[in-house]
Structure formats: C-alpha cells, structure tokens
C-alpha cells in the first residue's frame, strides 16, 4: 500500500531558479537562501520518496486565459520544461507516475472533487524551482513527480477549506493505491509577496510566522481564512499559500515539524520552507 511519508512546503521564486542555473548560489545574496535547504537535502537523500505529488501553480505558462482549471492533475509519462520568456530552464524533464496520477484523479473525482485530467502539460518555475532547491542539479530528477496545478492567478482561486479537503482526498487516494510506494506531498508558492502595483514588495513576517505555526499545530483554523486576508496581509501573490493547505491536508491530523526555515528577501518574496512528517498515531 502506498503511504504519505512526508510533506514539504517551499516558496518557488523564479529568481532562485536563475541563481542556480547561472551558478550564483555562492553569492552573498543567495548563500543564506540555499543554506536553508542543506538539512532538507541530507534528509531526503536518506529516505528518498518514490513519488512526489507536487502542488504548484502555473504562472501563465502552460495555461493562458483560454482555459483556467481550478485543479489540474498531470497524468502523462513526462512533462517538458516550458519557455517562460527567457528560454526553458536547463533542468531535466520531469518524469510522471501515470499509474498513481490516474488513480488519484479517478479517486478524487469519485470523492466529488472536479478534477481536470491533463495528459499534455509543460511545467514552469512553480514546479521546477522546488525540485532544484531540494535535489540540486542532477542529470535526472531522482523521483517521479505528479504535477497538481492549482489556479491562483485568476480570481477566485479555490477556498482555503477546499484546498485542505483536496489534500485529505489525495491522502485517501494514495492510501488506497495497492502498490508499495513512498509518496511525499509538496505545497509550493508564497510566502508573503506582492509583485504588482505601488504596494509591491510587501513582506509580512509576523503573519507568515503565524501561518507556519498554525500550519503545523492547528491547520483546521486555516480552513476559514478568507481570500481577502491573504491578499491584505501576505500580498496579492501571497494567495499562493492556499496550496500549502493541500499538502497539509494530505498529512492527516497531526504532524511533527522536522525543519523550518524563513528568509527575507529572495527577490521580491519572503521565502518559507518546512518539512513535516505525519505522526505515528495518524490513521
């Protein structure tokens, strides 16, 4: 039986991808950012997952205004890296896990989540930067990845509660998959940042810290967080944090915090990163 062995959350700032790709990780500006992932790299090398369900958002890369799915799950064998305007990032293509992806898709639909199944999908920095942060620059990614793209660009995105519930549905789906697989669920995006308008550059460290506290110990209290609070407190792009709730919902009632990291600034953004493990008592 497949198991959700851990959850990981991380910002997916595009400038981090550029810093890696252009070998700038040792610069004073970037060194502390990457240092925050040293623990994670060691940890994941010791118990590498077979599959990562990677919750991210597409940034007007694969999806345009033509079609906007709320939840799209990538069921293909592989996912090419898309050209966001600077040329595609020089990273390995992403290999999927169609067996588990289709299983999750079908299970979630029968569980009354209105998934969009995607068999052709290119992936942008939202998905590749987390992989780079955790796995560095391998010739091939050491895990299969199931992309789960969430709309947070076109208002309205899904509610906090809906994201949490989708996470729970993903947990049920994984736990009913017959093959013995070590599966991690990652939530990406955030933390506080605003990329637009005169208020750009907003960072709200106390709010982010509270979000992280509650994500670990009291996630139910985040279910009722209205969109406007993210927008007001964490900036217009801070709304990406709803995706962390999908990860958290997938871990069950209680978790142990293995690692927590927070750094300002990374480009325009407050970078947050946590690694969580379901406690043994979880069903």
């Amino acid at each position: 039986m497949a198991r959700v062995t851990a959850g990981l959350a991380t910002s997916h700032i595009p400038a981090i991808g550029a810093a890696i790709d252009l070998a700038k990780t040792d610069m004073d500006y970037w060194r502390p950012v990457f240092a925050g992932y040293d623990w994670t790299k060691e940890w994941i090398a010791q118990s590498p997952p077979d599959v990562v369900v990677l919750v991210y958002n597409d940034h007007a890369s694969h999806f345009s205004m033509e079609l906007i799915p709320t939840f799209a799950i990538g069921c293909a064998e592989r996912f090419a890296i898309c050209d966001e305007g600077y040329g595609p990032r020089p990273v390995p293509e992403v290999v999927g896990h169609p067996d588990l992806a289709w299983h999750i898709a079908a299970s979630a639909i029968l569980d009354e989540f209105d998934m969009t199944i995607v068999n052709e999908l290119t992936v942008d920095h939202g998905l590749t930067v987390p992989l780079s942060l955790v796995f560095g620059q391998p010739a091939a990614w050491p895990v299969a990845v199931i992309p789960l793209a969430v709309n947070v660009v076109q208002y309205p995105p899904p509610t906090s509660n809906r994201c949490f519930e989708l996470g729970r549905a993903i947990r049920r789906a994984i736990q009913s998959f017959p093959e013995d697989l070590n599966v991690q669920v990652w939530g990406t995006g955030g933390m506080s940042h605003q990329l637009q308008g005169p208020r750009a550059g907003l960072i709200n460290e106390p709010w982010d810290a509270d979000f992280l506290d509650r994500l670990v110990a009291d996630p139910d209290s985040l279910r009722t967080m209205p969109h406007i609070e993210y927008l007001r407190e964490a900036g217009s792009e801070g709304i990406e944090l709803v995706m962390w709730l999908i990860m958290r919902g997938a871990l069950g009632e209680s978790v142990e915090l293995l690692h927590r990291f927070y750094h300002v600034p990374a480009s325009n953004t407050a970078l947050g990163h946590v690694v969580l493990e379901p406690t043994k008592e979880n069903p």
Partner: protein
Amino acid sequence: MDFSAFDDIPGTRVFTPERSRRGYPLNQFCMSLMSPANRERFKANERLYLDEWPMTEAQKQAVLSRDYNAMLEHGGNIYFLAKIFATDGLSFVQAVSTMTGMTVEEYQDMMLAGGRSPVGVRSIREGR
C-alpha cells in the same frame, strides 16, 4: 459577484473576472511572447506586432512605454506581463520596482531591509 472589497487594499489590483475580461487581448498578446520567434518579431517592430492584436490603443501605449501600472489598470496580469519584461531581459525585481515609484536601488534596499511593511497599507477605509 461583488469584488469591490478588494478595492480597499491600497496599491493593489486583484485579477477579478472584470479585469481579466478587459485584459484578455493584452494578456493573450503577452502569452504569444513565450515563443522565441514571436519575441524576435515583437522586438523587430513592437508597434507592428501589437497591431496584430485586438487590444485597445491605451493597452498598446502602456506596453510600448513599459508602464506596468497602466498595463495592470487595463486588465493586465503580472504573470502574463512577465513575458514582456522577460523579452526585455529584465528580472522580476527590476520590472516590479518600476511600479512602486522607487528606483531599482531604492526598491532593492527596501527588500534587503525586510521588505515593505504592511502597516498602513492594509486597508484604505480603516486606515491601517
């Protein structure tokens, strides 16, 4: 749906259905810049390229003058607009700073000092 509550957030334009409908051709033009061939054609003659799109003149002028606040005002979304500054070879920090009334250096200094504080820019109505 009434999304007017979002107008209470200072200096922020939420990408509501109304904005996305207004910005449709502007944003779809931006998407076209994901192809290297289109980026070349745009760079060769921006006006000519823009005229292929059913954009308003105000949208075209905003693009030509790289006035990102004006692009937002006319329905642009920052992730779409990113295709323009990527074509220009600018980073997010460089492009984003232009919307704040600061120089890039001032903006970067603000970020290094912890970013813009939310105090006073949470709500126009409540003045907090």
